[in-house]
């Protein structure tokens, strides 16, 4: 008895929670935020790679020539990410990320 | 050396290493292993890991020696065991044990410190059934 009652109550509650996003279809604006977040993450990673390569170079783990080519590639990739970021940001209100 | 040949060479080296490791594993494990045996299967003249249950009421202390009988997990055949060394905490009547040694004149003479008792009760299912 207790089991059946709990089963019904829990099923109703969970069902309500899960159907909420299905009824509210305001997902579109999220797409840009998602892209923004993804690009920012990619940017962070790129920056870290640039710094890491720099440190490797300072510590003698990358030869001068290697480092220059690696650094050039990384930086051009970073610039590409920043360009995309700017494009997306054009559609998002200031500070939209931080909510 | 051209790149494809180099790759092939690396592959061969890696495979050789893998085969060597595998051979070492198989060879050493089969030569170093000891056979597990029930009391009813023991034969004299070679060493075994004896597995079975401690016959209730058979545990005796004699000086530094511990004497007890081990019987088949699912049978009645049993063998006397003499053992020296550390006795694991869970050792007692009816417990499943593993002990290494050799059969000498009808008695299983165990190697020092080789007694292992299965810890039966972290999940107590088996205690209830036994």
């Amino acid at each position, binding site marked *: 008895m207790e089991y059946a009652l709990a089963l019904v109550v829990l099923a109703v509650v969970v069902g309500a929670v899960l159907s909420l996003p299905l009824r509210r279809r305001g997902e579109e604006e999220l*797409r840009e935020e998602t892209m923004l977040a993804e690009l920012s993450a990619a940017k962070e990673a790129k920056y870290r790679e640039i710094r890491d390569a720099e440190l490797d170079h300072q510590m003698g783990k990358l030869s001068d020539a290697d480092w220059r080519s690696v650094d050039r590639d990384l*930086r051009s990739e970073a610039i590409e990410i920043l360009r995309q970021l700017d494009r997306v940001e054009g559609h998002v209100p200031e500070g939209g990320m931080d909510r | 050396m051209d790149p494809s040949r180099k790759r092939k060479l690396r592959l061969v080296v890696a495979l050789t290493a893998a085969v060597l490791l595998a051979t070492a594993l198989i060879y050493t494990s089969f030569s170093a*292993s000891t056979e597990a045996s029930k009391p009813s299967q023991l034969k004299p003249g070679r060493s075994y890991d004896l597995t079975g249950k401690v016959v209730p009421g058979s545990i005796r202390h004699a000086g530094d020696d511990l004497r007890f009988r081990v019987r088949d997990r699912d049978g009645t055949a049993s063998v006397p065991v003499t053992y020296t060394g550390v006795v694991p905490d869970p050792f007692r009547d009816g417990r499943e044990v593993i002990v290494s040694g050799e059969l000498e004149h009808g008695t299983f003479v165990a190697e020092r410190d080789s007694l292992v008792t299965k*810890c039966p009760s*972290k999940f107590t299912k088996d205690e209830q059934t036994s």
Partner: protein
Amino acid sequence: MAGVGSACLAIALLTALYAAAASVFGARAGRREWVTSGRRAIYCVATLCIVAFGLLEAAFLRSDFSYALVAEGSSTDTPTFYKVTALWATQDGSLLLWATLLSLFASTVLFLTRRSLRDIAPYATAVLGCVAAFFLLLMVGWENPFDTLATPPLEGAGLNPLLRHPAMMIHPPMLYTGYVGFSIPFAFAIGALVAGRTGADWIRATRRFALIAWTFLGTGIMLGALWSYTELGWGGYWAWDPVENASLMPWLVGTAFLHSIMVQEKRGMLKIWNVSLICATFTLALLGTFLVRSGILSSIHAFGASTIGVQFLIFIGLVIALSAGLIIARLPQLRSEAKLDSLLSREAFFLLNNLVLVGLCLVIMWGTFFPLISEAITGTQASVGPPWFNRLVTPLALVLVLLTGIGPVLAWRRFTPAALWRVLWPPVSAAALALVLLLAFTNAADSPASLAMFCLVAFVLVVVGMELARGTKARRTMTGESWPRSLARLTGRNRRRYGGYLAHAGIAVLFLGVAASSAFLEQRDVRLKPGDTFEVDGYRVTYREATAKLGGDSAGTGAPISFGAVLDVRKHGKHFVMRPSRNYYSSGDASLGTISRFFEGEATSEVDVRWGLKRDLWLAVRPDIGSLEKPIQEADRKFADSPGDVQALIVAALAERYRRDPPPAAFRAIASPLVMWIWIGGAIVVLGALVAAWPSPEARLRRVRSLYSARLGRELSRA
């Protein structure tokens, strides 16, 4: 409330299945609202699991013996701390712990990635939902922790005394957190494969989870070793027991994974290898859980007849088949973006370290499953013992520690032997110096493997120290900061790198302890009467007197009877007292005799250890209660139907008799050098892992000022 708990689990099972279905449908049909709903379903599973866990925990706390699980694993006289932890000492309870931890981890990672990884996250949600559903299905179908008893007993069976040890109670949740944690990178790897996004995104998103899982698993393994050392009464910390091995295997492969993902992030290589490694790690984690449950291998921890072994095997089989199939189907996308330029490169050595780690895992796996293998081949069960493991693992461990030292100094892509020598000559000379000193002043040469290990440890420690010094120096010349400030800034801004180096140093220290204590310990087994003296490793140990305590031993395990010994230890004019003892727990079996049953239950050694940085002195006592046998049997006859308080008096009298006229007791004394450094090394590894996993300053800054940092970044890249 048991009904509510069962209902929670049933609904959680349905919700987990819904999560999988909804997120896959959402991703396929491009309907984001279904993906959101699926993600929320995982949050719901977590909530339901927590409610169920809370209900069960409450039942344990109020000792409600109408719950079968509580009656089996707890009792009113179990100390509160052990009542709380008795939940996961039972099979059903540990399944619930697994499911709860899994749903919590899954919710956390899905919440953190809710706005990123659009393509991968839905499939990862589905994988996590399926894994959760499997564990919930086990509980709903076969092992319901909320099973009730029609006639509740008045008293529970109590928690196994062997498990009444703080380390043992934290050890299982640590291991489980590790096992469960690896399901996160696994789920995202599978998600990346399904979505065809095989770049380093999934690694970036879940690397931290893999590291945290690795840390917990490692801590769990260390705690298990500590428990073995201080509670099991044999004095060792590692016995190559199947259950120990089962936890070590995923840790080793996980270690390989943490290293090789760096190659994918840096060079876009080893993609197939990385997804294979994480699939293997997760499979081994499941296998670890399964081995503990199934009892197919005999072990001191074997848990006897289990009802869920087959289900586990089927699930493991499915995981292996599906991941292998998926990897093969995606082979074209998993092509390397770069080639291995030279065998003399950091990449190549990463690969080598991976091979050694995986090789170690294979060796251990072979040994662990050898009884099954030999039964399949020769028809008889045979097993390999610790000597076999030691013989094969030792050389691999030596190579591993060597690589631990070489790895950090290597250059990416390629380096020349001359350049390598320039950075390696100081650590090599340190190792050589260590060799000379050890040969001249110690007997380390008695064990060549240990001697080699000592030299390698010196090598690694010098490498790590030099790396720090060189980094600091480089930063100082750039910024002109003071030494300590440079050092702090350097490590603070490159946490992952220097955290990793710290972990390397910790591993070296750990192996220092292992090498010293395994080869140079001194052990004595003696029988002593009060007043007798023996010597071990320069310690003069005298058995002063016997002790007998009723109710409440010093360790707080709630043991009713505790017989022990007081020993005086002298060395070089120093003097201290040690008090090992042995606890006796009464048996619930009334047929044993009214008084006998107090002595016939479980018994555990309460070891006394004199901890020291140079060496531990470890003492265990085994009182001979055989001399009490006759009076006990007499008491059984005389007081067969006596009430409880009379029984207590009798037991007290027997204990007093033992204390006043103790028979010779058996002692085991072990003096093992540098054992302490195993635990210290382990702690350093954990510290290093925490440093590496801590969010980097720029990531935290991003949350506050993301837009400005983008602008800042533009400046950086223009310069």
